[in-house]
């Protein structure tokens, strides 16, 4: 599904990613761990085409297509979704209008007619239930007055509506209490199919428990320095990152 080859990227002139290689196949969940500033969020933002980040070298193939040539909106239509670390408030744009614009833009991309009003509202209702988001959130501005937990639930709700094939969860678990984390993780798990994949950035063991990832990667200083299965995640939870950094430094 996704192939990242020798990816180098800068933000504000500073090189953050220094040759990332990563392959994610259909149905796999990969967890990305690493100390603060190692480049996890940069990698996510590059994948979704955030214009603040500049790719200086390397390539990314998404289902065989050159991802770096696609606009952020076309990457979204092609099936890439990012749950933002800090979802922004957009006062004045109601959730309903926001989702309608998103859903119909995707349909247009695939040459389909816009969804009629009753089917659209039915879709929202169905997906809201999945993450336990009340109806009244739909008439509010996007994330306007939402608590931290509600914002993260709203991200998973949007993911459910847009049905991406590849999802990036950028610290979706941070700032969530135990119950909210369970709802978000269970919502995510319900959306998994043998055809959908994910890259999950997390610092928490609890997230590993819920998601049962196929692979865990450790990013240090802009490069993936360790690959393993879920047990690597638990080891990091116990021992931190320093031992990995030491091993890398000592060759």
């Amino acid at each position, binding site marked *: 599904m996704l192939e990242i080859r020798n990816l180098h990227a800068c933000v504000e002139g500073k090189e953050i990613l220094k040759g990332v290689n990563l392959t994610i196949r259909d149905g796999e969940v990969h967890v990305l761990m690493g100390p603060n500033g190692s480049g996890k969020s940069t990698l996510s933002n590059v994948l*979704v085409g955030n214009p*603040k980040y500049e790719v200086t070298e390397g390539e990314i193939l998404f289902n065989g297509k050159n991802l770096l040539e696609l*606009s*952020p909106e076309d990457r979204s239509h092609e099936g890439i979704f990012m749950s933002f670390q800090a979802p922004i408030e*957009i*006062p004045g*744009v109601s959730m309903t209008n926001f989702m309608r614009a998103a859903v119909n833009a995707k349909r247009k991309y695939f040459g389909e007619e816009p969804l009629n009003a009753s089917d659209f509202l039915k879709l929202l209702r169905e997906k809201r239930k999945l993450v336990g988001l009340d109806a009244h959130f739909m008439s509010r501005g996007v994330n306007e007055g939402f608590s931290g937990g509600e914002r993260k639930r709203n991200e998973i709700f949007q993911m459910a509506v847009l049905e991406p094939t590849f999802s990036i969860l950028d610290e979706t678990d941070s700032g969530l209490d135990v119950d909210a984390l369970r709802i978000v993780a269970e919502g995510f798990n319900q959306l998994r199919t043998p055809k959908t994949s994910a890259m999950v950035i997390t610092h928490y063991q609890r997230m590993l428990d819920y998601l049962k990832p196929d692979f865990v990667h450790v990013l240090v200083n802009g490069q993936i320095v360790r690959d393993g299965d879920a047990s690597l995640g638990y080891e990091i939870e116990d021992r931190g990152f320093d031992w990995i950094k030491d091993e890398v430094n000592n060759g």
Partner: protein
Amino acid sequence: MDNYIIPAGQSVSKFLQFSPGEDHIKVTVEEGATLNACSLLNMPVGTEHSVTLEMDLMAHSTVNLVSITLKTGKAVANVHVRLIGEGADVKLAGAVIADAEQNTEKHILVEHVAEGCTSDMLYKQVLSGQSTGLVHGKVLVQPGAQKSASEQTLANLCVSQEARALSQPMLEIYADDVKCNHGSTIGKLDETALFYMRQRGIPEVEARLLLQHAFVNDVLQRIPNEDLRERLSHLVEHRFRGELKACNGCSLCD
């Protein structure tokens, strides 16, 4: 000069669409009366309009005024509101959408004369092209107008490099027991919001449009009549999409 009197205790709603030229309007809102007024300026680009609006509010009267400027060549508004009777309440709101070389000016003076009056100003401008929009809002609290409360918010969005917003909130207070707030902002479209929307698949042009419409949404929300609010909201959307014909086919249109 057009003179209007809103009789004591009555509630009146008014919708006004301006034509090119000059208007001079004087309104007296008698004791306990309510006026809900909405004005629309949508004129061909080569034309000019100026309006002078004087409003006197008597005791416990209420005015809610919303003005929407969609298209014009040059438009100047001079508004002078006097809160003459105790407990009078005025809400003034306006949205200006300008592009090309359009030029708008609003000079607004709210004078608190009597005790215990409230005033609220909310003006928003979305400027693109080489347009210039000026809003000068002033609240003047006269001696003796104790317990006055006023809010003043001027917010401006410059969508292009060349657009110019001139935004000047002012307070002049001669009483010592008042509560007056004022604020002014000038900014660009929020790039983070724009990217968030694009990540969800909303094309950039559409995302910009939604954000601009959202920016003036709270002004539109001040229109109490739902049908009128939706109609104007629709016109605003068409304006941002560049699909609006000026002036609904008046004789000056081509």
